[in-house]
Structures are given as C-alpha cells and as structure tokens.
C-alpha cells in the first residue's frame, strides 16, 4: 500500500493503451439528454469549423429530419451518398461503411450512434460500424442520447416507463476521446417541441409525447450531466495516474461474475458492471456448465448465451466452461485470473437442503480466502412488477438474431417411460399377487422396488418416481388390510409404506444420477473419440487438400453442418477453393464475410455480432500466430455450435485443423528449401564444370585464332593448318559439351516427351555406328546380336544418345586401338544391351557414382567431359522404365549395360500381298 512507484504492469498497459489510441481514430460524442436538444446541429457546427480549418471532413450520414437550420449547415460539406437497402418494399437509407473506409477522410460525421442497422449491413449496430472506422484510423463525430447507454437503460426504463432497445455498450462511451454535452434546459426543449422543431417518428407520437414530460426531461438531463461528470472524473484519474499525483496506488481489482441459467443472471451482470465501473476494475463473467446443467431445456441454455453476449457488450470478458463441479471451477478460474471479488447470486437452496447438499456460495466462502464475495438476492416472483418483467425480458426474448431455434422439447419416447412404468408395476403386482399369503409383505415390497430400479435404470427419474407412487398405491390397495381401500388398518404398515416410498424415491434419484452421469461420461467419451479420430486422420494427412477433406468430413459428422474451408491467395484475398468439394462441402459462402474474418481474426456470421445477417458462421482458423484460413459452417442448429461444451469441442477442432495445416505448410516449405539447396548445389557444380571444361577448349580456339589473325606472313603453311585443325577440334569438343548440357537441362526440366515407337535393335546400333564412324575408325568394333532379338519400343533418338555417350566414354577412357564390343541379350521381359571395353576399368566403389551429375573420377583431367554423359544415359534409361549399371569385367575392362523392359506387345505385320 505504501508503494510509491507505479506498478510496471500498469505502466505497460497504459503505454499499450496510448499506442492503440494513437493509431486508432478519435471518437467525439455529442451527448444529450433527449432528442431535440440540438446534438446534430452542434455536430454540424463543429464540422463547419473544422472545414474552415481545411481539414478533410465529410458527412457520413446525418438525418436532418427536414429541419431547416440543420439543412442549411449541411451546405458546403461533402456528403457521402447513403447505402440504399430494400427492406420489405421500402427503401432504407443506411450508412455506407465501405464507401467511408474507401474515401478515408480525416473526420467523418455519423449521426445516431445507437442506430440499429437494417439487415444486410455488415454489423447489426451502427456503433460497430464506427468502431471499424476508428480502427481504420478515421476520426468520428457522432451523437448519442443518454437513454441509449446500456448500463442506464434499466434506470431510464424505470423513470420514463419506456424502454429503448437500441443501446450502445458503455465501453464505446467510455473509450470516446471526447464527449461534448449538448445541454438544453427542459423548458426550452418543451418549447421547441411545441413549435414542432423536434422530430418525432410518426407511428409512436403519443407514446413519445409521454416521454417528453417535464419530470422525465429533468431526470434525463441530470443523468446526462452526471454521466458526463463521471467521464471527466475518469479522465482526471487517468491524468493523476499519468503524473503520479496520488496518495495510494490502487491494487488493480478483478471482478468475477458467476451466472447460472436463471433470471438473476442479467442482474448479476449489470451489478458486476456497476461494481467494475466504480472500482475501475477489469471484470469477467463466467458460466460453468455442470453435467447437471447440460440436461436443462434448450431455451434456458440459449438464455445463458444471450446473457454472456450482453456481458460482452457491457465490456466484460466472458468465459463459458464446462466442468463437473461448479465451485471448484470458479475457484480455479479465480486463482488463474487473480480475481479479487466475486459477484454471485444468493444460494437458492435453503434450510436443510442447503445443509445437506451444500451450496456453491458456502464452498466459496470456506475455500476462496482472499476473495471478497458479493451476494445478490433473487427477486421474489410476487414482487415482480413491470420492472422485473423488463429485466427478465432480455433473458426470454432474443435481441440477437438467429438464436431463436427451437427444438421439439418433448423427445420421442418421453411417454414410453411412463407406459413402461405402468407395465412393470402391473407385472410386479401380478408377481406379488402370486406370492401373497406365502411371503411377508416386505418381500412383496422388494418386488416393487425391483421394478422401480429397472424403470429408473432404463427411463430415468420421472417414470421411476411415477412407478414408486404407483407401487405404493397398489400395495396399499391390494396387499394391506383393509383390501381395496387406501386406508390402512395397522399404523405400522403406514411406516412400511412411507419407508417404501422414501426408498423408492431415493433409488429413483440415485439411479437417475448414475444414468445422467453415465450419459455425460458417454458424451465426453464420444467427444474424446471424435477428437482422437480427427487428430489421427489429420496426422496422417500428407497435404493441405487431404487435411481440408478430413476436416470437412469430421466437422460434418460432429456438428451435422455442411462446411467449407477457405484460404487466402498470395495477395491475402480469400478465394473459392479449386476443388469441386465433397458431399459434406458447403457451396455457398460469402467471400467478403470470410475476408473480414481473416483480416480481423474474429468470428462472424449467424449468431454473432458481426454480419449476423449471413446465413453461415465464419470462424477464423488460427494457429496462434496467424490466421491460416476461414471455416464457413452452415449450422443446422445454432445450439449445436454455441453451447459451451460444443463450442469447446469446435474450438479444439479448429485449433487442430489450423495446426495440421500449419504443419504441412512448414513441411512443404522445408521440402522446397531442401530442393532449392539441392538445385543450388547442382548449379554450383555446373558452374565449376563449365568454367573448366568450356574454358579449356575456348582457350585453344581463341589462342589459335588470334595467332592466325595477327599472322604477318611468318607462319609456315603447315603451322597454319595445324592451328586451324586445333580450332576445329576444340570447337567440336565444345559443341558436344554444350549439347550434353542442353540435353541434361531438357531432361531435368521434364521437357522431353518420349516419342516411343517400335525399332529393330540393329537399326539403332547401325545409326550410332554410322554417326561415330570416323571416331571409331581405328577401333575394332564387334556387334554381337543373337538372332531373333525382338523389336524394342523406345524413343530411338534417345537410345542412340545413350549408346553414343557410352561409346564416347569408352573411346575417351580406353587406350587407342583397343577393341569395343556391343552385345545384346533378350529374355521374355527385357532386352539388355552392353558395351564392353578392355580399358583400365572403373575404380572400385565408383560404379554407381559415375551416373551422378557432374561426377568425374578424375577432376580437372584434360581429357574429361563435363561429367554429364552418364547422367544423361541414366535419365533416359529410367524414363524408359529401365536401369543402367557399370561394372568391371573379370578379364579386365569395364562393361556398361542397360535394360529396356519389353512391356508392350510388338505389332503384328500383315502378310505381304
């Protein structure tokens, strides 16, 4: 408490806040007590002033309501054309957000902050449009009446008797850079009203006139003044914090509001908001869904979701979690989030029940030591006047679009339990009737209890309690004297019957709990199984397409909703998938919504705050660092998606999918990097090869040619001829090198398409020998082709190239005049062709390396080529589905052989005519 130095965390938070503020546009609110005080007028006046300062200010949307003074002020200001939306035959003029963002002025005027947009706009509320403008760095001037402030909505409803539905979250008001109060004394306002200067909607004229009672106006004015004063106060506090003018540094407070599925929830949230405001504290609203609560009817669970949305609007962070035990979940959350105060409803269990079964509050009191508890009383039903009704109304009625899906509440088979209860009881009665007289009454009772256990196990609480009562009644009626009467002669039987009823009811309850726990456990297990199945499938998916297909399929199975995953293109624009999709794929997605979701990393679409008019829900797929894509899901039932435990499951799904996608993308990137490195390595060896092997002949050519050019008659004719021959030979050598390099490049690029045809092997060999005729002149060449060698199905030019390369190799690496053999052998599957020499052979261990690109046994040897010849051979032979190898012959020398598979049937020749 006597710590004089500012808390570093707090300072950091302030720096962050200032940074965000600097980037964000500034919001100025013209704030008034009621319609007609002249907010729009004041706003336009301010705009004119800015205009005269040459600031780029435009009017986004201003309603003049036909008032002349206002209309005159509009002159000379640039007005953005409104977006026209057809709504049930009438055309509505709405603010055109996209046009404003595109125009990007310094300041824009947008009237009526609390306005609700027509369906078809991006956001349901205008304040959300304005948030987006501010985010885009545009300053906004707007107008607001005090009654539209969310937290005052209640109070004003009570004061005026009129409740407005168009509300603005307090956070918007609080975060405004500037609030200018437009004040007009009530008398003057009434005068203006009487003069007809105040615009009133036609249809509600009477009701609204009621609103403009002097008493009301005074109260509203006071509220408006106080609200503005509070804001000034808050600014002052900020200032004092900034300048360390303070007596005591406040320990920052964190408030946790715990709500349940009851009418108290909304009041708890509002109370939490007020407490948080007064303490300037952060606040959280938590809803813990226990297995018991999961059994609640659907409307109640929807109600909770609505309250959580309300809390978000009021500026709270919301947490919906599912846990087996409410109190321990609350305590755990409190510890994690450093909660200092908990707001919770008073225990609903009273008296012995509370003693027996305990209450969350009691557990919190005993376990949460450092936390202050605020208990809020429940409203008594009988007290409920109009105020209570309106308070409950949010809970009952949905202000959010879309969340009004109803299930048939009575499940099929609901009555079946009761029918079974009757049947089992009848059976028990018959059995008991047979036993009657021979067995004690206690044994008969056991028979009935057995029946109750059976019903409880199969059909749950209701039918089994029903069976309990039925059984007791029948025992009383049939087996306890006097028979056929509900009266009991012996009082001890009364005890017996009561005990039976109690035991039966306890059994019912216990069994029902066991059943529901088993059901919950079953659900949980199923969810775990589903998750496991998906993560397993995702883990085995090798590429993005496969992951998307897996994800779409699993999402469809689990949530029953058709869905599609969209990805941005290289420019970050969301595009439709190229894949035609599967049965489970959704084929209608709004790209602009998906784009928004991608850019903002926020959920949008049906049942959310953003673009709620969209048919589907759009989820960002975030891997924690960035949004990799957008999941679009067309819900068959919103509850299946927005219930806490389902949402948790979906969140896990989304995370898993995003991670799987990130995984394959990283793998792909790594693969590409590796390929690039490989290519780089090749390029380097190519460069070094070329630099050596092309420069050597070039040196000879340039040298010889220059000698000839600069010749001054001193050279002998013989020398000239010698030089010319050198040029010719080296140029030939370079030509073959260049050809090899080009061939390899073409083979590598996959640009070569094999032109396979049927060839007699001798023709190919013949062509090669003709081509190499001159160079083979001094070599004895033997060709050994056994008769009956089948034709081969190859690209002859390519195979000739292989043979030429192999023969050239033999010429290059064997002594002059040593013989070369060409042999062929055929099996029924393949033809093997070998070229054997009697040279020095291949150094041991190099047999396979020879076929690698740019590999040479002796580097920098004058006689060598680029080291591509054999690599080209291998590429060609492999393209033909064959293989090539080199080995040493036992008698000395090397043999290179390749195999061409015979996997086609040779063509038949018709007999000659």
């Amino acid at each position, binding site marked *: 408490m006597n710590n004089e130095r500012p808390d570093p965390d707090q300072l950091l938070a302030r720096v962050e806040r200032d940074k965000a503020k600097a980037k964000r546009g500034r919001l100025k609110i013209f704030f008034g007590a009621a319609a007609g005080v002249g907010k729009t007028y004041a706003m336009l006046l301010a705009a004119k002033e800015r205009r005269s300062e040459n600031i780029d200010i435009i009017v986004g949307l201003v309603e003049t309501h036909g008032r002349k003074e206002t209309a005159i002020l509009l002159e000379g200001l640039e007005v953005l054309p409104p977006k026209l939306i057809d709504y049930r035959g009438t055309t509505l003029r709405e603010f055109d957000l996209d046009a404003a963002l595109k125009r990007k002025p310094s300041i824009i005027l947008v009237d009526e902050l609390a306005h609700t947009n027509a369906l078809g706009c991006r956001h349901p509320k205008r304040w959300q449009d304005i948030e987006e403008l501010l985010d885009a760095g545009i300053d906004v001037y707007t107008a607001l009446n005090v009654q539209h402030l969310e937290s005052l909505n209640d109070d004003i409803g009570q004061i005026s008797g009129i409740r407005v539905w168009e509300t603005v979250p307090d956070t918007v008001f609080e975060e405004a850079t500037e609030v200018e109060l437009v004040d007009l004394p009530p008398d003057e306002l009434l005068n203006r009203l009487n003069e007809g200067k105040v615009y009133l909607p036609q249809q509600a004229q009477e009701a609204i006139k009621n609103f403009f009672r002097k008493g009301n106006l005074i109260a509203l004015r006071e509220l408006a003044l106080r609200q503005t004063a509070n804001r000034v106060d808050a600014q002052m506090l900020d200032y004092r914090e900034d300048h360390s003018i303070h007596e005591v540094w406040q320990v920052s407070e964190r408030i946790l509001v715990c709500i349940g599925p009851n009418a108290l929830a909304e009041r708890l949230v509002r109370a939490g908001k007020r407490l948080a405001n007064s303490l300037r504290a952060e606040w959280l609203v938590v809803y813990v869904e226990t297995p018991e609560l999961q059994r609640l009817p659907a409307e109640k669970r929807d109600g909770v979701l609505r309250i959580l949305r309300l809390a978000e609007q009021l500026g709270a962070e919301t947490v919906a979690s599912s846990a087996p035990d409410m109190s321990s979940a609350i305590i755990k959350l409190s510890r994690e989030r450093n909660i200092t105060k908990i707001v919770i409803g008073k225990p609903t269990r009273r008296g012995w029940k509370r003693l027996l079964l305990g209450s969350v509050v009691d557990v919190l009191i005993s376990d949460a030591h450092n936390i202050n508890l605020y208990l809020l009383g429940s409203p008594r039903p009988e007290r409920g006047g109009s105020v209570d009704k309106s308070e409950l109304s949010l809970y009952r009625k949905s202000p959010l679009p879309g969340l009004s899906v109803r299930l048939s509440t009575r499940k099929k088979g609901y009555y079946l339990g009761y029918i079974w209860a009757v049947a089992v009881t009848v059976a028990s009665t018959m059995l008991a009737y047979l036993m009657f007289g021979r067995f004690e009454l206690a044994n008969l009772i056991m028979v009935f209890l057995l029946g109750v256990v059976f019903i409880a196990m199969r059909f749950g609480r209701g039918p089994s309690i029903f069976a309990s009562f039925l059984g007791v009644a029948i025992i009383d009626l049939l087996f306890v004297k006097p028979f056929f009467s509900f009266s009991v002669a012996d009082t001890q039987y009364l005890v017996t019957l009561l005990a039976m009823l109690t035991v039966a009811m306890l059994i019912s309850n216990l069994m029902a709990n066991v059943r529901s726990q088993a059901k919950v456990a079953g659900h949980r297990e199923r969810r775990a199984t589903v998750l496991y199945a998906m993560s397993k499938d995702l883990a085995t998916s090798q590429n993005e397409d496969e992951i998307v297909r897996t994800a779409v399929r699993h999402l469809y199975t689990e949530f029953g909703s058709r869905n599609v995953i969209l990805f941005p293109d290289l420019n970050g624009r969301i595009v439709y998938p190229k894949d035609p999709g599967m049965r489970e794929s959704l084929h209608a997605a709004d790209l602009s919504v998906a784009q928004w979701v991608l850019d903002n990393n926020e959920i949008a679409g049906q049942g959310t705050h953003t673009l709620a008019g969209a048919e589907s829900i759009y989820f960002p797929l975030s891997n924690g660092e960035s949004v990799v894509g957008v999941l679009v899901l067309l819900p068959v039932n919103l509850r299946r998606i927005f219930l806490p435990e389902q949402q948790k499951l979906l969140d896990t799904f989304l995370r898993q999918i995003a991670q799987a996608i990130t995984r394959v993308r990283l793998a792909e990137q790594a693969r590409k990097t590796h390929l690039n490195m490989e290519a780089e390595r090749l390029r380097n060896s190519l460069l070094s090869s070329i630099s050596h092997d092309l420069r050597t002949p070039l040196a000879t050519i340039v040298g010889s040619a220059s000698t000839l050019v600069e010749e001054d008659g001193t050279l002998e004719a013989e020398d000239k001829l010698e030089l010319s021959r050198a040029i010719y030979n080296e140029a030939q050598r370079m030509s073959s090198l260049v050809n090899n390099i080009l061939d390899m490049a073409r083979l590598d690029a996959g640009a070569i398409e094999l032109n396979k045809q*049927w060839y007699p092997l001798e023709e190919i060999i013949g062509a090669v020998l003709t081509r190499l005729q001159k160079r083979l002149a001094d070599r004895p060449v033997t060709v050994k082709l056994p008769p009956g060698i089948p034709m081969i199905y190859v690209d002859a030019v390519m195979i000739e190239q292989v043979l030429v390369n192999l023969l050239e190799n033999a010429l290059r690496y064997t002594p002059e005049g040593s013989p070369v053999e060409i042999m062929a052998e055929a099996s029924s599957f393949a033809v093997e062709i070998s070229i054997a020499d009697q040279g020095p052979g291949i150094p041991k261990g190099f047999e396979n390396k020879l076929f690698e690109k740019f590999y040479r046994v002796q580097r920098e040897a004058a006689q060598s080529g680029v080291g591509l010849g054999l690599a080209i051979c291998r590429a060609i032979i492999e393209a033909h589905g064959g293989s090539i190898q080199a080995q040493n012959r036992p008698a000395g020398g090397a043999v290179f052989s390749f195999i061409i598979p015979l996997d086609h049937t040779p063509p038949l020749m018709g007999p000659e*005519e």
Partner: protein
Amino acid sequence: MTQASPVIVVIEDDPAIRLFLRTGLGVHGFKVFEADSGRQGIIEAGVRKPDLIILDLGLPDMDGVDVIKTVRQWSVMPIIILSARSTEQNKIDALDAGADDYLTKPFGLGELLARIRVEMRHSVSSPAQDQSGVFNTGALKVDLLKRQVIVDDREVHLTPIQYRLLSVLIKNAGKVLTHQYLLKEVWGPSYKDNSHYLRIYMSQIRQKLETDPTQPQYLLTESGVGYRLKV
C-alpha cells in the same frame, strides 16, 4: 550446258555464318548471293535463279518452313536447311514442306559441300543411273528395267514391297527421305502412322543387301527423321 559457276542463294540472318558460307563456297567455285531475312530471300530466289538455296530455319521475320512453301510454289530447285534446333520434328516439317536435305549447326564445310554435290547432281539428272536404267553404288547394282538387284555379283530376290521401297530410295538416292514420305510412296497415304512397317521392311532389305546390318553401307538411318540411300 555451258559450265558457268553454279549459283547459290544463302538465306541466313547470322552475318558470321554468312561470311563463312560466302568464303567457303566461293573458294569451291560457287557464286553466292546473300539474304538476311525470309522476305529478302524469297526475292533473291526469284531474281537470281539459283541452282540451290541454303536456308536457315530460324529467321527473324518468318518461319523457314514458310519460305520453303513459298519457293516450292514456283520452283523445284534444291533447298538445304540449316537448323540450330536439334529436335527432329523441325527437320521433318521442313523436309515434308519440300526441303531436300538438312544440316544441323554446327557443321563443317566438308559436310555441306557433300550435301550440295548430291543435290546438284540430283537436279541435273537421275543419280548414278545411266541411260540403261541401272543404278550403281559400291557393290550394289539395281537394274530398274529388269527389276533385278545384284549385290557382290549375286542376285538377290526382293518381295514386291521390298523392291518398291528400294526403288523409291534409288529414285532419291543421296537424299534424306522422311518416314512419312516413304510410307506414302510405298504403302499409300492411309499407312502414314504405321512407321514400324517401314522399319521392319528396311531391316529385311538390310539383311539381304548389307554385309553387316548393324554397320550399313547403303541404307543409312537418319535418326528420328528417315532414311537415306548412300551414293
């Protein structure tokens, strides 16, 4: 015919190669006119009345194949193609369009002169074929009137198709003939996709005429393009 020096038009855009051809051919008694574009080349071919055209396929203004087609509209003068492209299809296209022979760059002057000689001889009279209608090359002698084939003084019997194939080659001796052309001439237009027929028959003829079919002396293979009868 007076023995004036033969005229050659060289259509080639590369000045260095033009220089090499001009000097090389000039030394060997040819009169050379140059054109550096297809259009100019067509004009030269019309004006100079050359005995032969040497044409580069890669010209800046038009495709060499189109030059051949244009020239072929009025003249049968021999055309030899020079091509830097080594893909066979280019050569085949040019040959099918009416070119008589080809050389792939780089080439030596000797090779070029040999081709020119074949073409000139061919355009003057039927090659290696005297008045009696007998074709002679090496040890091979074919009497086209008697339909008699003799190798090393030994008569060889050919089937009708084998003989027809050989006679087409003899008619164009020394020239490269594409697979397409041979198929059309021997079997007819509907057989143009059955190039394996051609290879099998060629192989059979080689077996009968050549001493070693893998080192042919007469029936040479032009890889991927066609065949040539050596003269």
